[in-house]
């Protein structure tokens, strides 16, 4: 029998049991949606991580306070890094540039416009190290930090919210109730997942630590190494220097951590990997459940339609025609569930993207894969019932009431 006829027959039989078909497909819907979400999140995380690393600039070492135990989890005091460490690291051989950073959150205002933002205190080299370009204005000058000037560089998004397209340069803004002059607006970078420079509000570190937030602790120190090959060497020097400066006894653990870009990539990979593995097992279990559901319904269907099978055999259906008919039917249910799952999974991925925690991009191969998986499940779990149908004895099947 022609495949077209077989598919038509399958559709007709499935449409005559709409509710049952929908429930049967549900497992597949969830399974395939999970597959799509896994792939979308995996892909999104990859591009986020890449974007993040790209935004960090090259030949970078990052010094963070405290100690890392597993993944992103940190223990120990987080106020161990201070301004003096930045200046000391700057003196080390092989170091091209250093910037100390700290963060605090506060209200940022211009006239009636205001928003709450994370305000970063940074030293002069910060923009260069982070590869951030100033679209308008001059950015921080050499004396801004030393002279504790109340100047700010703001991200494109922040400028838009505060000034709504009007020129921001030279304007006064209020940060946590104190007046600042805008000396630069960063180039728009677009959304890169994690934190985007478009949302930054940057002020000189000395001002941040002084009148603005009054805390000595740094959240991180970024070090740019002169050449890639020096990275390990410089990392070691920084560690020795900081142990000395922090007066750590021999055998005492570091109260800071120096990491290279490769190590940062690995950490982020581990986080997204864990998440993907979790969703992946949800997907696997749902697909298994979905497949078993399909098998179950197909067995019921074969039993209900025993007489139909007998009639078809009596008018000339071969065993393989019957096999194909039921196999196609199970593939159709499975693919139907798969298509709904693709829609649901894509929707979920977009929702996750909007919630902003993760960027989610559904890669095109995910659709092909999801369809392939649906067909595969339809075959694997449909072949048993289909073979049972095909093996029926025509006379017995016809006798069936």
């Amino acid at each position: 029998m022609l495949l077209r006829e077989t598919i038509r027959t399958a559709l007709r039989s499935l449409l005559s049991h709409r509710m049952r078909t929908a429930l049967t497909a549900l497992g597949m819907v969830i399974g395939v949606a999970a597959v799509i979400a896994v792939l979308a999140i995996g892909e999104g995380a990859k591009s986020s991580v890449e974007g993040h690393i790209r935004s960090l600039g090259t030949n970078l070492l990052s010094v963070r306070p405290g100690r890392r135990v597993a993944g992103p989890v940190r223990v120990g005091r987080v106020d161990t890094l201070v301004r003096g460490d930045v200046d000391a690291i700057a003196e080390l051989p092989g170091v091209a540039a250093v910037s100390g950073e700290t963060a605090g959150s506060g209200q940022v205002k211009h006239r009636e416009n205001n928003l709450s933002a994370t305000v970063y205190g940074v030293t002069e080299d910060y923009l260069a190290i982070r590869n951030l370009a100033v679209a308008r204005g001059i950015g921080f000058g050499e004396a801004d930090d030393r002279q504790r000037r109340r100047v700010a560089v703001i991200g494109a998004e922040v400028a838009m919210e505060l000034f709504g397209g009007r020129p921001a340069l030279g304007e006064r803004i209020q940060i946590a109730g104190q007046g600042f002059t805008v000396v630069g607006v960063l180039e728009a970078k677009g959304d890169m997942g994690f934190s985007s420079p478009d949302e930054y509000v940057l002020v000189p570190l000395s001002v941040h630590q002084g009148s603005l937030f009054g805390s000595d602790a740094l959240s991180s120190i970024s070090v740019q190494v002169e050449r890639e090959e020096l990275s390990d060497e410089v990392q070691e020097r920084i560690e020795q220097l900081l142990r000395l400066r922090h007066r750590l006894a021999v055998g005492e653990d570091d109260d800071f951590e120096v990491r290279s870009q490769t190590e940062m990539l690995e950490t982020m990979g581990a986080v997204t990997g864990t998440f993907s593995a979790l969703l992946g097992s949800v997907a696997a279990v749902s697909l298994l459940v979905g497949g078993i559901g399909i098998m179950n319904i197909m067995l019921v269907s074969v039993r209900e339609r025993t007489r139909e099978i007998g009639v078809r055999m009596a008018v000339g259906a071969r065993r393989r025609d019957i096999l194909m008919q039921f196999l196609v039917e199970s593939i159709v249910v499975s693919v139907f569930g798969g298509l709904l799952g693709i829609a649901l999974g894509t929707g979920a991925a977009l929702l996750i993207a909007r919630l902003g925690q993760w960027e989610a991009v559904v890669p095109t191969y995910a659709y092909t894969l999801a369809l392939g998986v649906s067909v595969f499940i339809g075959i694997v779990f449909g072949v048993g019932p289909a073979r049972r149908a095909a093996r029926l004895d025509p006379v017995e099947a016809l006798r069936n009431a």
Partner: protein
Amino acid sequence: MSEAVAAVGEGASDAAVPTVEVEGLTKVYQAGDPDLAVRALDGLDFRIERGDSVAIVGPSGCGKSTLLHVLGCLDRPTSGRYRLEGQDVANLDEDALARIRNHHIGFVFQSFNLLPRMSAVENVELPLLYAGVSGGRERALSALARVGLADQAHRWPNELSGGQNQRVAIARALVTRPSLLLGDEPTGALDSGTSADVLDLLTTLHDEGTTLVLVTHDIAVARRLRRAIWMRDGRIVDDGPSGPVLDAFIEATAGGADAPA
């Protein structure tokens, strides 16, 4: 197996070859214990010439349906020979039997056996779909016209009367122009008026050249056919022109031995 089918087809053109020829045809149902084996067909020998019409009568359980299933290649004999238009079909494989059912046999059942989710014309077209021929829809429509249901082609089985359902089933049986039309009590589920109409249709088809074999409990139906085979316990009691055979059968039945159901 396609060679086998082709051979059957060639046989059809040879008037000297009987449509059906069985020798020692035996069907044994084994129910676990060998002592409990049922010999549903016990060494039957007969031929049916091309264009003949045969009624098979006998008490319930005597093996009529079993015989029809074997003749219709739905079932295989345990032993014995069965030639359909000169071709030995007793030992063909499953696919070859399916093709023979499709090309050479038309089956009509007591309970119609139409597929409920298909319109009349789709039911009639079904054998042609399995045959893989083109223009199936037109042939199905003309088969329906032949049984007088041209205007009901797109109705569903549950929208048609019993007699109409059986006409659709007959159209389905004859749409492939089979050489052998088999009916297992085709009028058994119909009232007498409708039954007569269906029988008229079957005999018309027979007059047009189809070989017809009907199992029936209805003596009036049996009398309309040329020949009768009277069976009991898997064996043939009498075989010949329907008049005398049926008279003898009724007489025996009146004696209480073979009460018709």
